[in-house]
């Protein structure tokens, strides 16, 4: 593997990017600079690599269709990059001290594009479906919705409803801003299984409505003339300024970039990191909104051979040179990880010292644990070689190059990781539930850090990512404290302890900041904002002349 050559090229590219990014264009923030006067009309073309997941309910909303849904449908709240929930369709809300009951007060006069009212009854129907799904139609629940504690949604009057839970659920309000938590008309919720994917039958209340679409290829939206209920976070009222938005699938990333340069598109999603510098030098803007969630990294399966040993996990933790990963694979838009939470998560701490690159420490830890270098440099103990297969995530395009660097770094301390690049089917078959795979890559956004409590153990349907079940007393306690928290400040303190413990124990091996959605666009586009999960809202956007 020619990592040195790659590293050299990318370092140069990164250097140009840094110069261009810092000297020519400001580092992107959560909203592009709204300089100049607003212009009505205009047509924005947005190129993306896929619209494959279809237009069904709940779990069918993915990164790509989620961007389209963000323009067609509204949410109850808007969650910004700092995790703050602000009013949208829910004008305000009340919470009981136990965080088990939430009363939502809805805006009046809001309608879906099929003309039906967006009232408490419609919201209750949406929340019920998010929480429970409908297996009689093959519809799963909404991933990351706090279903395990959900009790019911009760309509109080046309514009007020009460949502109750069986246990404290601090994450409820932020989750309402999740990109999959889009409000749909009741008729859309009740479609038959063979109609669920028909976008023309899916009605939202958003600032844009469907003009035309072709399954998994394109969607054309036009602004809704009577829209006047945008999120409080957007300084705009009345209909959207953009007349039309076209979302079009162009699978090849370099063609997307070329189309943008040729003026055939205004926005493209997810360009390879090494192409960003060239695009910047041509005057295009690179917007890399921070996304709430986990950083890129690996969760460690403690049941995997050798990874039950603390010394092995800690050796891996200190064998990773995170700065080298950023320098080699990414650009200055990415930052090395300082914990396993993204830096904009309010509860994220700076645990850089626990992640310090220290190969000598790794070697010492392994030596002390009896892992001695073999003839080929790979460490051996009791006749067992310290080797494993490292599977690149098929969902993350940068996973493979990152893993290539990681395998080289591990090799330097005597750990032999063999990179395996497989498709989604094979990945699921080989990695999911396989206790022989020690490191499993994770890439996940969330809007409330309460999700962290759910990965620690298998209590209450927890994901148990470290595979301790409920045998680790510290994790049991921490998971319980996060789950039962009724006060964000107290929970933040617990989450600091969770981060320290998990990183010290080598249970999560962070690699780099996660930029799941990276937008390259014409500098003429102004006024768009991004949610805490880095999804754009073009309600307030316009195109300069």
């Amino acid at each position, binding site marked *: 593997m020619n990592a040195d050559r790659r590293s050299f090229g990318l370092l140069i590219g990164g250097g140009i990017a840094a110069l261009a990014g810092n000297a020519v264009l400001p580092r992107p923030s959560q909203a592009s600079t709204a300089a100049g006067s607003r212009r009505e009309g205009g047509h924005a*073309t947005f*190129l993306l690599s896929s619209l*494959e*997941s*279809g*237009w069904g309910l709940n*779990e*069918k909303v*993915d*990164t790509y269709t989620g961007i389209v849904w963000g323009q067609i449908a509204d949410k109850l709240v808007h969650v910004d990059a700092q995790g703050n929930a602000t009013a949208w369709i829910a004008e305000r809300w009340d919470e009981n001290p136990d965080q088990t009951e939430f009363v939502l007060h809805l805006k009046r006069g809001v309608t879906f594009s099929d003309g039906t009212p967006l009232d408490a009854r419609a919201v209750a129907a949406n929340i019920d479906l998010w929480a429970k799904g409908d*297996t*009689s*139609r*093959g*519809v*799963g*629940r909404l*991933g*990351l919705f706090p279903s395990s504690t959900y009790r019911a949604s009760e309509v109080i009057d046309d514009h007020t409803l009460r949502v109750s839970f069986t246990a404290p659920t601090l994450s409820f309000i932020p989750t309402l801003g999740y990109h999959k938590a889009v409000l749909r008309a009741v008729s859309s919720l009740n479609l038959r*299984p*063979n109609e669920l*994917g*028909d976008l023309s039958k899916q009605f939202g209340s958003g600032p844009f409505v469907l003009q035309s679409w*072709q*399954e*998994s*290829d*394109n969607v054309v939206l036009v602004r809704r003339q009577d829209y006047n209920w945008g999120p409080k976070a957007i300084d705009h009222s009345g209909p959207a300024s953009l007349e039309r938005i*076209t979302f*079009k*699938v*162009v*699978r*090849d990333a*370099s*063609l997307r970039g*070329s*189309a943008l*340069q*040729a003026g*055939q598109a205004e926005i493209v999603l997810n360009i390879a990191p090494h192409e960003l510098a060239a695009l910047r030098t041509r005057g295009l803007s690179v917007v890399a909104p921070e996304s709430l969630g986990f950083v890129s990294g690996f969760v460690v399966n403690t049941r995997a051979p050798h990874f039950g040993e603390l010394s092995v996990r800690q050796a891996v933790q200190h064998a990773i040179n995170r700065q080298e990963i950023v320098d080699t694979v990414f650009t200055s838009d990415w930052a090395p990880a300082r914990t396993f939470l993204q830096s904009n998560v309010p509860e994220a701490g700076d645990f850089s010292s626990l992640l310090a690159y220290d190969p000598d420490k790794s070697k010492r830890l392994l030596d002390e644990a009896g892992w001695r270098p073999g003839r080929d440099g790979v460490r051996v103990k009791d006749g067992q070689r310290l080797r494993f297969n490292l599977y690149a*995530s098929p*969902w993350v395009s940068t996973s493979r190059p990152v893993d290539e660097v990681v395998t080289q770094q591990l090799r330097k301390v005597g750990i032999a990781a063999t990179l395996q690049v497989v*498709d*989604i*089917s*094979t990945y*699921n*078959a*080989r990695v*999911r*539930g396989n206790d022989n795979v020690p490191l499993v*890559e*994770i*890439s*996940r*956004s969330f809007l409330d850090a309460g*999700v962290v409590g759910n990965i620690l153990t298998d209590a209450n*349907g927890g*994901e148990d990512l470290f595979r301790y079940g409920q045998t680790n007393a510290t994790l049991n306690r921490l998971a319980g404290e996060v789950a039962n928290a009724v006060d964000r400040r107290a929970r933040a303190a617990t989450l600091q302890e969770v981060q320290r413990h998990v990183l010290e124990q080598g249970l999560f091996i962070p690699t780099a900041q996660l930029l799941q959605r990276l937008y390259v666009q014409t500098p003429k586009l102004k006024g768009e904002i991004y949610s805490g999960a880095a999804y754009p809202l073009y309600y307030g956007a316009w195109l300069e002349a």
Partner: protein
Amino acid sequence: MSLSPHVSHAASRIAQAVVVVLLAYTATFLIINVLPGDPISNMLLDPDNGFTPEEIAPIIAYYGLDRPVPEQLWTALSRFVVGDLGISLRSNLPVSGLVLDALPSTLTLAASALAVSLLLAFLIAYASQNLPPRLGQGLIRAIPSVSLAIPSFIVGIFLIQVFAFQFGLFRITSPDSFAATLFAAIALGLPVSAQIAEVLITNLDHEARQDYFAVARSRGLSRAALFGRHQLRPSSLPVVTMVALAVGELLGGSLITEAIFGRKGIGSLVQGAASTQDFPVLLAVVSLAAVVFVAVNLLADLIYPLLDPRLRRRQAARIPAPDAETLV
């Protein structure tokens, strides 16, 4: 009352076609089931969803994917024979609608590519026979080999970069426009034109060495008449076979060309279905491809006698026509 040889032959081929389609359907079903994983897990076990396998089990059960493979196959075949292609697991839309929506674009592209490839092949073949050697006849004869060596996706990207982005002749966001379709057809048809040209040149050379060709030339026929009547016509039988075989190649090649040019067709439908193991869609497309392949070969069988009087005489004597492949 006995059937005419033509009708009897056609009926026999149609019966064979039905068997081929059912076998293709069954084989595809079994191959998909041998692959690891299932479509629901592939879609839902994306780490961004946060689902556990236990949570998606009811959804897998809803689609019947937890049942034994023979039972699933029987259910699928029972529906298929009455024309029910099922629902796409990925898009929750009827498969028949997805295929019908995608088909016109692919047929347009394939037909355009076929026209482009025939035109190019004819021009190259004509030049190979009639261009004086000193004016680059050797170079002309080398074109097919060079064209075959360049993958169509490279040609496609090159055409887009130059003609869409540099000259602005078409927009990648309007892939069904005339210009975009023409360039996509060139990308897809170029390798096929090379194959046809190679076969055509070989046969034209062969005909040019025949006695009757020398006699015709000695009678003072014009160059065009000589080429059309005594070289091209007898050489066109293998071209018909090549075209029949090329249909499969064009349909297969559309998978890549459609993806590059951003066209919504059968190729992109297959690509999306294959990446998620959306087997109702895959089964429908494989069956469609089998039907098209068999139909085109049947058509080629019926055309041969029109081009070759010897075959007409054989059919009159109730001797079945040879298969397409034996005439290459």
